């Protein structure tokens, strides 16, 4: 289980990285925690690895107005240690805590997770619920891609060859929870006992993370009470196409989506709601 022969470069600027990435068979190496196992199984066979390890500008979390800007090369561990994330994006902190194990969290990066776009990944669904925006740099300049447009298909994103995800911009949110066989990320805003605004995103219920629109429609403006929430959550799997595989049947995933949506929304209403 040795990777196939590959060339390697560790550029010292984003521009130099983009230049190499123009080659369609080049592959970005961030933390390597998804890529290296794939290289070893020879499921991925790039001609050149572009190691972003020397790009210090892509590491770290900063505040920009009301937004939190998280560099693509920020590790899970650094996200968990960051006071800004704990304060402004507790959902991201909670979900990151469940990613891999300590060793994986020391090397794995948020940008790597999002660009890898594994349907079972936690952070793609979290980015969708947080209404995050991906900051992308290419030869022709930079562009912003909303999370809703970033995840295109199984392991496929809106990144074009020659483009690099440099940061994730997260609006100031207050939110709850995240899983893996099926994951649910929910954000609610309550107004005088009613649900003023609700967004629910599902991980691993389709080739991309998807919003549970039936639940959102049923609950927007509804009373923040179990009599409204429970029947609405039974519709969480509407319009989804979960995988039927060794880990779980599609039916079980639909069941989980409903159960976890109930938990996520209930948790959200109970403890994580910003009522100001």
């Amino acid at each position, binding site marked *: 289980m040795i990777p196939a022969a*590959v060339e390697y470069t560790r550029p010292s600027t984003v521009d130099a990285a983009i230049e190499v990435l123009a080659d369609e068979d080049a592959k970005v190496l961030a933390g390597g925690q998804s890529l290296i*196992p794939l290289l070893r199984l020879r499921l991925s066979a790039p001609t050149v690895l572009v190691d972003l390890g020397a790009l210090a500008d892509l590491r770290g979390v900063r505040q920009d107005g009301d937004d939190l800007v998280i560099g693509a090369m920020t590790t899970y561990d650094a996200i968990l240690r960051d006071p800004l994330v704990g304060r402004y994006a507790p959902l991201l902190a909670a979900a990151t805590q469940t990613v891999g194990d300590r060793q994986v969290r020391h090397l794995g990066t948020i940008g790597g997770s999002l660009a890898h776009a594994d349907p079972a990944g936690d952070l793609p669904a979290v980015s969708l619920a947080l209404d995050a925006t991906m900051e992308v740099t290419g030869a022709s300049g930079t562009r912003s891609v909303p999370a809703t447009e970033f995840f295109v298909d199984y392991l496929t994103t809106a990144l074009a060859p020659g483009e690099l995800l440099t940061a994730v911009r997260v609006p100031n949110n207050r939110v709850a929870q995240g899983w893996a066989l099926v994951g649910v990320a929910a954000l609610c805003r309550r107004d005088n006992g009613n649900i003023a605004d609700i967004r629910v995103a599902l991980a691993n219920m389709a080739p991309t993370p998807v919003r549970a629109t039936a639940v959102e429609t049923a609950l927007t403006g509804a009373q923040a009470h179990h009599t409204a929430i429970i029947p609405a959550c039974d519709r969480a799997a509407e319009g989804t196409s979960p995988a039927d595989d060794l880990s779980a049947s599609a039916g079980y995933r639909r069941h989980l989506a409903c159960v976890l949506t109930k938990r996520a929304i209930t948790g959200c209403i109970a403890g994580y709601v910003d009522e100001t």
Partner: protein
Amino acid sequence: MARISITVDGVRYDDDVEPRTLLVYHLREQLGKVGTVVGCDTSNCGACTVLMSDPDGRLVGVKSCAVLAVQADGRQVVTIEGLAGPDNTLHPVQKAFHERHALQCGFCTPGMIMAAVDLLTDNPDPSDAQIREGLEGNLCRCTGYQNIVRAVRDAARDLREAGRSAAPAAPTPLAGEDETPDSGLPREQVPDEVIPQPVP
């Protein structure tokens, strides 16, 4: 080939490596650090865990089968062979594993100890639940977890009583040579066939 420089257990090694070389094979086959083992070969079991400095210089646990040797260029690495102190005393985590018999076949032990050192450096007083969660990346196929948890708990207590961090002491170049506690026969009496050789 790529030129890399890694400081392993206090000794700097400059080598030409193929970019596809995994750190664990570089450690074992090029540098002879066979204390670090390859377990599952799929980055699940954690047997290959070593400490590696992050960009800020902090030593953190990583699975050396999921790191390319080129990614370790310029970094510090501490393996199980560099954990004992310069005065030949076992690290408190090693000592506690010994005293609590926190191993059965022993194959997971190097990774389990390095992961425990990483955990205790971060959290000097973990609950049993935090110990189990902290070691979730390491598997013991003998299922000898009870004594492993006891050993980590003991080591945490010993470290706190001694008022020291679990972070390894400055590694000694003597590690792996004739002054480590498990050195066995003096080197000149060791038969050639048991000395690890790089695989051609």
